[in-house]
């Protein structure tokens, strides 16, 4: 567990759209790059001498893979140094360990905790009743956000790589369910405290999406659900945005099938891909292939523009991250983190 520097050693405030937010929850439809975005955000938030904690709760060891470190144990480990100084810690929360820790901290149940484990109560709590898993996972996140040492928070910010959009509201709201079950008592108090933090302005849920129909639809639904549940929606991160590779006029023409094949053929001759002396029919297949690709690209681009308009109507800020070909490595994370800082997400 990290020890806190004296508060004076920490960096001061800087310009970000989410200054003062302590808990950043990152969600997104499966396949949109939610873990990557969460990791880059944690890195960006750590830059300039801060300390952040990146938490994963889905038992997938996605963080370890991204940062190229051995699988994370149930302990906070430093995984990277941020630009301009700053430390990024990571934690993979494991429900069983979280439960034992919870029992220990809140009830000082050393031996009794082991008895519960022996009769299968721990199994019951962490596997059979999946809702209790979510209670434990959110409880651990709450603890990390609230932890203080020497009068100041141990972490300047905590980033949660949360369950996907389809489950996020239920996940974050699970403690409301608990409050419904336990009318009084210690569990009730804990559940209420967690809900207060999650609904406070210090907590923001960011949604990651692609410019595709289903992820955008899920984002729109997710924003509505989160808002209805009283949870704060932060930014919408548009991931894997591709450059528009054709000049605007050519793009429009390609969509209508109006690009001139002869002009393209001349271009291919000039580029040396089709021999100038070749008979007129040569290269036709190449020209047609390129025009087909352009028409498909144009269709994709107009679909993306339509999806972007829909996202804009949500009224939450949009942040674009570029498509990275060749897979995400540690270097990419720094680049994405830089993009986030430049755009004000962190």
């Amino acid at each position: 567990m990290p020890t806190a520097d004296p508060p004076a050693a920490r960096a001061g405030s800087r310009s970000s759209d989410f200054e003062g937010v302590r808990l950043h929850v990152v969600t997104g439809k499966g396949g949109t790059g939610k873990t990557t975005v969460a990791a880059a955000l944690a890195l960006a938030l750590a830059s300039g001498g801060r300390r952040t904690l990146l938490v994963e709760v889905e038992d997938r060891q996605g963080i370890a893979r991204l940062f190229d470190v051995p699988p994370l144990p149930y302990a906070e480990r430093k995984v990277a140094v941020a630009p301009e100084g700053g430390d990024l810690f990571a934690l993979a929360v494991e429900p069983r360990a979280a439960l034992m820790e919870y029992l220990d901290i809140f009830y000082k149940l050393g031996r009794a905790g082991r008895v519960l484990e022996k009769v299968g109560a721990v199994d019951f709590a962490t596997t059979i009743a999946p809702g209790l898993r979510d209670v434990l996972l959110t409880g651990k996140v709450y603890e990390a956000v609230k932890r203080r040492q020497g009068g100041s928070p141990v972490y300047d910010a905590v980033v949660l790589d949360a369950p996907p959009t389809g489950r996020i509201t239920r996940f974050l709201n699970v403690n409301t369910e608990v409050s419904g079950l336990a009318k009084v008592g210690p569990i009730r108090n804990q559940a209420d405290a967690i809900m207060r933090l999650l609904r406070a302005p210090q907590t923001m849920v960011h949604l990651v999406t692609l410019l595709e129909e289903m992820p955008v639809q899920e984002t729109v639904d997710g924003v509505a659900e989160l808002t209805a549940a009283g949870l704060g929606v932060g930014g919408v991160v548009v991931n894997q945005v591709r450059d528009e590779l054709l000049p605007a006029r050519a793009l429009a023409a390609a969509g209508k099938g109006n690009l001139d094949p002869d002009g393209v053929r001349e271009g291919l001759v000039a580029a040396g891909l089709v021999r100038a002396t070749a008979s007129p029919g040569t290269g036709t297949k190449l020209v047609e292939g390129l025009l087909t690709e352009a028409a498909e690209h144009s269709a994709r681009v107009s679909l993306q523009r339509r999806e972007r308009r829909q996202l804009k109507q949500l009224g939450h800020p949009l942040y674009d991250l570029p498509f990275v070909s060749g897979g995400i490595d540690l270097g990419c994370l720094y680049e994405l983190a830089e993009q986030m800082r430049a755009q004000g997400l962190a």
Partner: protein
Amino acid sequence: MKAPPARLELDPLLDDLDTSIIVCCGSGGVGKTTTAAALAVRAAERGRRVVVLTIDPARRLAQAMGLDELDNSPRSVAGVGEAAGGSLDAMMLDMKRTFDEVVQEHSTPDKATQIQANPFYEAMSSSFSGTSEYMAMEKLGQLRAQASVPGGSGEQPWDLIVVDTPPSRSALDFLDAPRRLSSFLDGRFIRVLLAPAKAGGRAYLRLFSTAVGGITGVLTKLLGAQVLKDLQAFVAAMDTMFGGFRERAEQTYTMLQADGTAFVVVAAPDPDALREASYFVERLGAERMPLAGLVLNRVQTSPVESLSCERSTAAAEQLEEDGEHPVTAGLLRLHADRMRRLVREQAVSARFTAAHPRVPVVQVPARAQDVHDLDGLRGVGQDLGSA
């Protein structure tokens, strides 16, 4: 480069009347639901009488299949399969209603009311994630019991059931659901919770009761007396049904291992999805579940694969340098970008095949538009099948 994998031939699988269940599984966001729906449409149009169970279809796809009304039972999809003598029924899983139905069917009206009024029931049946796996398996069992397949009553004409699986934390949760339920029911914790009701007064149980008293003491401290009482009442009320639950869960599990079942693992050509797919393939093998093969969705293709990324880029650079033919230069950049993705995807897929050389694979090319109508599903079906 190693030899390419064998092609997954789905048409013969769909045409084989011995195939009675097809399970589509894979991680989230890879097109699992679309694949299940496309297979169902194709099978119906090849003459099978199909019912498809979807978990969480995209809204427009649901509408296209007439699934926007949630009544938790299959509805006929008009205009699919009649010409070939087949038919398609489709349904979307409603977790809460499935749970309600199970409770009503397997207990007395009094007890059902008692169970449904318990606060734990409300939480368990609608809010807690994870219940969908149990309920998907329960529903699959129900559909099969009514179907015209071996072991079914023949009450419904279905001779093929296509199932989509819930987007789980781990895509394998649904396989674990029956076993988890069994281990839970045989577990000591249930006995401890039920002990006060069952052990009342019998002297030889006194020792056990004392130990139990200690544990319930701890639980009371943890949960509060009222919560513990509700939990005990819930477990006691459910106890009579648990046996049936377990029996059916085990039947479903055995049914999944049977010859008439085929698992289709769905993935997209990216490292994460294929890693999950690998894990899946290994797990299915370990559980002796019949794997048909891998569907690789949204694969990048090009009509001019002979022009490599490198040559295309070099040509574009030359045109840009000369300041001529900007449109052609743009087209070449576009093509280079497409080829770069294509080559990368091929490398990722090749790694999967290197690890699982015997798993047949079928590739479905990426589309410019999302699939949200029956014609779109037919198109995907065409790519999945042999044509």
